[in-house]
């Protein structure tokens, strides 16, 4: 049996990891709700975000925060363009083609990132190094806390945006019925692209905050698949569900890696498959059967 301090340590690692998954999943769910497209390249937005923040902080030398804002905004612009230039054209195609298209984006982003920023692992200087003690039992890294705090702030911001602002409500309307939204004079196309930008922004923020934990290289985008698994565990249709699922996956993962080394790295998928077999719609069901 593990000593208590290790259990707490693994638990906190798990919560931080789960929050990072949750941030990525937030983008997944927003884009899914707006367009019914699952963006398999979302992990790559995160990877690009980390690289962009790194590049800005190296090029400008103004420290972390300006680089963070600029990096996330530039990835948001990439997200906007991806939708406005390409995804918009294929609305109504079979889902298979759309999935494969986003997977192809993943390939392109990864290759481009490697060509531009190099294939080596890089590290990013953030203001969050150092530890704080929690009682005398455990010490927590500050970067972990930063992830959790950022998750809470961003989730709150997204919630307020969608419930309180004109644009957010218009986005909800467009998500519920696109055609009706068009009839109401809502600029659906622009809003959908804007949703992509928000999703990409959040993913980029997650990438930059995760950088001290995972380091930065072109393969960290694969975390996105685990975030997707987490979102599915919770139920893709709802943001709280997806966040809960991600937290669950994040907390299970370090313990599963410790106790079952045979499935190291794939425990997230095992959990997801079990959940899908038992409850095919995820733990929190949001979709209902269509009636004729």
């Amino acid at each position, binding site marked *: 049996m593990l000593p208590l301090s290790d259990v707490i340590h693994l638990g906190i690692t798990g919560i931080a990891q789960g929050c990072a998954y949750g941030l990525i999943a937030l983008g997944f769910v927003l884009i899914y709700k707006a367009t019914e497209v699952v963006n398999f390249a979302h992990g790559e937005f995160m990877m690009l975000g980390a690289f962009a923040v790194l590049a800005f902080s190296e090029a400008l030398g103004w420290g972390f925060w300006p680089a963070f804002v600029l990096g996330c905004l530039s990835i948001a612009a990439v997200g906007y363009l991806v939708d406005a230039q390409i995804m918009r054209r294929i609305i109504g195609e079979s889902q298979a083609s759309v999935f494969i298209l986003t997977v192809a984006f993943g390939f392109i982003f990864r290759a481009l990132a*490697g060509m531009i920023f190099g294939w080596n692992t890089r590290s990013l200087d953030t203001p969050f190094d150092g530890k704080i003690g929690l009682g005398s039992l455990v010490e927590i890294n500050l970067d972990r806390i930063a992830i959790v705090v950022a998750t809470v702030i961003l989730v709150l911001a997204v919630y307020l945006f969608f419930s309180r602002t004109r644009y957010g409500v218009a986005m909800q309307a467009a998500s519920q019925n696109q055609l009706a939204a068009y009839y109401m004079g809502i600029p659906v196309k622009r809003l959908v692209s804007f949703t992509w930008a928000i999703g990409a922004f959040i993913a980029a923020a997650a990438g930059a905050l995760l950088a001290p934990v995972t380091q930065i290289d072109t393969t960290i985008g694969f975390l996105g698949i685990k975030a997707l698994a987490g979102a599915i565990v919770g139920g893709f249709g709802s943001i709280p569900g997806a966040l809960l699922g991600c937290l669950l996956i994040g907390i299970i993962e370090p313990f599963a890696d410790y106790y079952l080394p045979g499935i190291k790295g794939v425990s997230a998928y095992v959990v997801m498959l079990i959940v899908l077999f038992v409850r095919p719609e995820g733990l929190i069901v949001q979709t209902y059967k269509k009636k004729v």
Partner: protein
Amino acid sequence: MQFLFKTHYNDDIRFLAKTGEKIRVALVIGLLIAAPLLLADYYLAELGLLLVYAIAGVGLMILTGHTGQVSFGHAGFLGIGAYTHSILLSHGVPFSLSIVASVVLAGAIGMLIGRSASKMHGFYLAIATLAFGILLETVFGEWGSLTGGHAGLAVPGLQIFGLRLTSAWQQYYVDLLLALVVILGASNLFRAPTGRAFVAVRDSELSARCLGVNVEWVKIQAFGVSAAITGLAGALLAHHLTYIVPEAFGVLESLKLLLMIVVGGLGSILGAIFGAIFISILPVALSFLKDVLPPSIGQTAGLEPLLFGLIIVVVIVFEPLGIYGRWMKLRFFFETFPYYRKSSFVRQKSYLKTERLR
């Protein structure tokens, strides 16, 4: 322009209705049979591999192209076929039995997946099959006592009814025979009620259900058939690889299969074959491109995945029906000459049609 004058009900479901099609198919089959006389051993082996990929493509096409169920884990079935076949062969089971066993096992696992998949929707299925593929790769790697683990497993030589088939042309004929059987069988499936039900489920689950199609059972069947055919391809692939490792059946291989059917053209058997030709030529074309381009560009790491991704994007955005769509338009141009117009195949504008209620 050729007019089809139907004199019998069977004319509606004939494999090849037009004379031109018959001539073309006969020509291709004739060339394939004569190939060992025309090609050197290396190219013959490549052609055999192409046929194996065509089989796998037909398998995935039935599921993704015709039934509309996306699978990101089909290389897993390829792996099941390859590993079952190799393990049985190395335990002394004859070829004919072991290939049947690998087809049956892959099909049975496919039906099991299909049973749970029949309750899932759209991308839940995609991600579940992706996880299935990743897990299978892990299983192949970790179950060392059976599969040889990450060190790999040697595949015994091809031997049918006590006859050792060692030369390239013998192996090629085995591939060709099975490929023809699979393609004929798949075409036949889609003139029968079962296959038509597959297509109905793809086009609209709701209306298929209203027409009395048992949607869950159709999905299970589609998964079973598709997995069985892919398992067969896996067994044949094992002979081409001669040494199998878990990484050969990972996510990248699944994506390669998907690339094949998307570029070839979703929803047609011919598309799977075009796709197989495409991915067989692609590496050759890429290495040629590397030589032609100036070294500063050609030798950049990551050029291949970049082009790989770009090709998929370009094909999906500009020609959603893939190579098959081009072929169809070309044929239409010649058959209806000079009536082809730019607007003959204009795509309809569409908006998001959701199955969700909230």
